[in-house]
């Protein structure tokens, strides 16, 4: 029998460093991989299809990247709170329908129509948030249900026929700001503002803490439910905003216009490095993810005009991308661990 009793190690220790070396900080930033993916895609595109990277090609691609980005930012919020919003297609469609139906009514006028479209649609997001936060129901089931409610509203308002958007809205949506499509500028502003709030304010820090672990956050006195509810509410509002812009871009938005935004919105978040389990997220990463997806669509479109084939190819590539990002995420964590162990004996 052995009785090894070491003396308590009360040796004075050196305080740990504030942060690691610059390369490790950059490497651990979740948006880095999405950024690399975008760079690689743009580098490869001219080799595959020279037409896909010309000035006009990029200009025509950017508005779609912008729309994906705006929807995906909302999706990022919800995913950060450990949820998933399957009602965003309904919100995009409803937003687009409301602005085109009400906006062309001279009694209401375009500005009021835009406000109603965004605020009205966001109420469905608020409903999702309240049910998820107060009753603890699975976000999937709740958002499937609110999506059905919004599709029902679309059917009731439209009577099965889509309306024509206001010409002013269309003119705005296709206008350019110093040569850059205005939609891209709007998306950029939203990304930067939201990223700044998230990273540099107390409110943003609390939002991230709640997403990382709601139980821990509640115990230290953070009003968890408010943050969860606002995530769904903002996601609804942003999707409706994308719907309004889409209505301008398409002039006559279809009644299923939003359906094409569900998978890209989730894929952009995953590619952007936000963990599906919630917590810390990178909105800039999400924006890169959206850019990647839009360019990918562009690339696929130069080969086939069949939407069905485009869908298959996209689903496959997105699937591979998600798998790669998830698997790589784990590996990168392990690599990082090794790196740290070696650099700090």
């Amino acid at each position, binding site marked *: 029998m052995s009785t090894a009793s070491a003396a308590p190690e009360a040796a004075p220790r050196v305080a740990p460093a504030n942060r690691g070396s610059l390369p490790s900080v950059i490497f651990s930033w979740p948006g880095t991989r999405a950024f690399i993916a975008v760079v690689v895609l743009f580098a490869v595109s001219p080799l595959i299809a020279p037409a896909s990277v010309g000035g006009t090609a990029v200009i025509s691609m950017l508005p779609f990247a912008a729309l994906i980005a705006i929807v995906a930012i909302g999706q990022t919020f919800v995913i950060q709170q450990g949820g998933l919003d399957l009602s965003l297609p309904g919100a995009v469609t409803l937003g687009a329908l409301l602005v085109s139906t009400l906006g062309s009514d001279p009694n209401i006028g375009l500005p009021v129509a835009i406000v109603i479209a965004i605020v009205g649609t966001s109420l469905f997001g608020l409903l999702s948030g309240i049910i998820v936060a107060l009753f603890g129901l699975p976000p999937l089931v709740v958002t499937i249900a609110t999506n059905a409610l919004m599709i029902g509203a679309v059917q009731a308002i439209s009577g099965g026929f889509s309306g024509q958007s206001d010409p002013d809205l269309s003119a705005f949506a296709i206008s350019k700001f110093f040569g850059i499509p205005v939609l891209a500028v709007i998306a950029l502003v939203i990304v930067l503002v939201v990223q700044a709030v998230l990273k540099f*304010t107390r409110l943003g820090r609390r939002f991230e803490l709640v997403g990382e672990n709601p139980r821990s956050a509640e115990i230290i006195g953070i009003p968890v439910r408010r943050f969860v509810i606002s995530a769904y509410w903002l996601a609804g509002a942003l999707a409706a905003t994308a719907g309004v812009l889409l209505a301008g871009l398409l002039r006559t938005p279809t009644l299923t216009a939003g359906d094409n935004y569900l998978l890209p919105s989730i894929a952009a978040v995953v590619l952007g490095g936000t963990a599906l389990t919630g917590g810390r997220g990178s909105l800039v990463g999400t924006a890169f993810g959206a850019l990647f997806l839009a360019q990918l669509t562009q690339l696929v479109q130069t080969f086939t005009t069949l939407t069905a084939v485009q869908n298959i190819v996209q689903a496959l590539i997105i699937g591979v991308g998600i798998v790669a990002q998830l698997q790589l995420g784990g590996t990168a964590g392990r690599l990082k661990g090794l790196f740290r162990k070696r650099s700090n004996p």
Partner: protein
Amino acid sequence: MNNSTTNEPVLVLNGITKTYPGVRALSDVSVSAAPGRVHAILGENGAGKSTLVGIAAGSVVPDSGTIGLAGETFTRVQPRVARERGLAIVYQIPALAPSLTVLDAVLLLLPDSKRPRRSGAAAWLTAHFASLGLVIDPAATVESLSLREAHLIEIAAALASDPQVLVLDEPTEALGPEETRWLFERIAELLEKNVAIVYITHRIPEVVEIAHELTVLRDGHVVGSGEVADFTADQIVELIVGRSLETTFPDKFVAPAEKPGYVLEVSDASGAKFFDVSLSVVPGQIIGLAGVEGNGQRDFMRALAGKGLVSGEVSVGGTSVRLRSHASATRAGIAFLPGDRMGEAMFGKMSVRENVVAPSLNSVMPGGLANRTREYTLTQQAIAGLAVKTPTLETPVSSLSGGSQQKVLLARSRLGDPKVLLVEDPTQGVDAGARVEIYAFLRAMANTGVAVVVLSTDAVELEGLCDQVLVFSRGKVQAVLDGNDVTERSITGTAVLSTGHSASTVSAVGAKRKRAFTFWGESQAVVLAGLTVVLAIASTVVSSAFMSPLNVSQLLAASATLILVGLAQLLVVMTGGIDLSIGSVVALSGVIISFFGSSGGMFALGVLLALLAGAFVGLINGLLVTKLSIPPVIATLVTSIAVVGTAQVLRPYPGGSATKEIMTGIGTTIAGIPVVLLLAIAVSIAMSIIIKRTGLGRGLRAAGSDPIKANRMGVSVPSMRLFATVAAGVLAALAGFVLYSKTGIGDANTGQALTLTSVTAIVIAGASIFGGSGSAIAVAVAGLLLQTITNSLSFLGLSLSWQYWLQGAFVIFAAVVPMVVRFRRSRAARK
């Protein structure tokens, strides 16, 4: 007792090493158990005992080392294999999936050779329980049992499996003295039968009483082993703690001459599980809360932490405080450190810095804006002197060791400058070196005037650290131990003795237990059937055409599709997933079949191909989820889009009608009921039997109910999930065939709405959306109801939008109602 020392050991663990992120749980540990002998494994919380048990049972995979069981050597065992080879285990927290019935759980735990036939199983189990002196209803669900009852059931199941090795992990933790006596008698019987017993505990008197050999673990290392007779009780304690008690704990509080005011005063506090608790702390004092688990001490601490009291007074620093939420407690200066560090205290993937400043953001970011430099300065101040072992302040806190994590939490509470510090299990999973520092820190906090209240399951720790200990029993303070009375012996003695008065018999289970699974599932079906009839009558009143044979036949045939997609979704949801590709598979199946409509033989081939395609999609879904760990939603969303794309490529425009003979053939009715509906009903009944009465069904339910516990019970969770997704693919393809029988054309764009309907069907059928339970019969009736709604809308003069609104509203309503009912019930139980 038996003296069979010459016998070969039946369980041999050799050179076992296991590392978790940041912790080396076991390093090079070797233990063996011989027939007819009890081998005790001792150690503090977090010494590695439970990990060792998990490795022997197959629920934890070791990094290196071998497991020898019944003469064969493995590098890893599956839980099922371990059980089949005669290893039975009783876990510290019973590993019984909550949604199963007692009978299901016991049947699942037994090895194949010992399992009775399902038809006589209930009677067999009642008899088995009776032979052990237990009265427990086999039809009760596990979640309705108390911890104690669940323990007894696991012990009973282990005894019924006639094991060669029985592993007991802290078996007496949840039991009273009489039950402990009962257990020791059972152990003596097993020893007579030459069974080897591994007994994990931290209670030394029990070791001295029943064990032959012992092994002591500390921080994952074997620090001592041998015959129990060669050790004195004091020597064992010293081996466990690793040093003499005097050097481990800081000096205690010395009361000053004049009596200062109380920092924390609680009077007559009552809550759901504790009554009339009073407590007062003067500056410098550390108060301990003790008791057998589940006697109200934890609830009392959580009430102070902000859960709130039903009645009573709390004042902090002389000011009365109203506790309504954690936020109000925090404002009053009460800081709480929960024992479940990763689950309730830390922000695992976030950095040390973010964790330390998290509760103090108001003072760290006074203007609402972040300031990195200020955060670093404050964090460094807070962790100063605590020896937190971390490379940088940006390191994710989850990668630190248990001791360093706890120090980060202590630093965080110091930064918040609290008046009261509540600490639950302060040294759970903390290595011996860090314990000393944590004790010293808590004492230093007390010395600065903070009221420190510690809850611990370790009586030695309470003896060493606390100035006063409140021992809880059945929600009341049984004894207040002060000064020299604060000893391990008196703490455990009071706790155990007092429990004895209350729980005098083993047979405490009433017969009025709610039979949740069977009864609830079918009553839901009855309710839905009633709704269907009411709706049908209402529609007929508005328009008699609703009851025309043509409409009824159409309605019934169409409901077959909904029933099948609902059943498909039920299987997946039951195992804890969700399938968003169901609608796409329905479309693909119809499209495939539409190419084979030229003759009867070809048509059969087409249906077969469609079913194979469904199985293939299900297989892909299952592999993405189980092998690549992609969340089910995302995996099935991706396949859904690829599948519908494939269907569109195959048939860009609807078409491909079959010959008239085929359409008439698959459209026939028997006594007015379409054949396709009979098919759907047959599938529902078959599924209902499989789910309720077979081992496969038990496995599916267990896997969805609690994957970790299911794995411990010997269920292969990945194979259950894979089975569910493949079967769901086949059922969805079958639904595609049924849909084709109605429309007669292949259309890639039909079916998308069926994904929503499938979710609606299972939610209103009362299946748990969190997995683990659900009735196939109720889903079938739900399918019928949903089709009746769709069908009656036009008769009631309502637009298509109502179909969506009703479905959406139904889902929310059906999902919210059980939650509200449960909430009400728990509130009623409180009063």
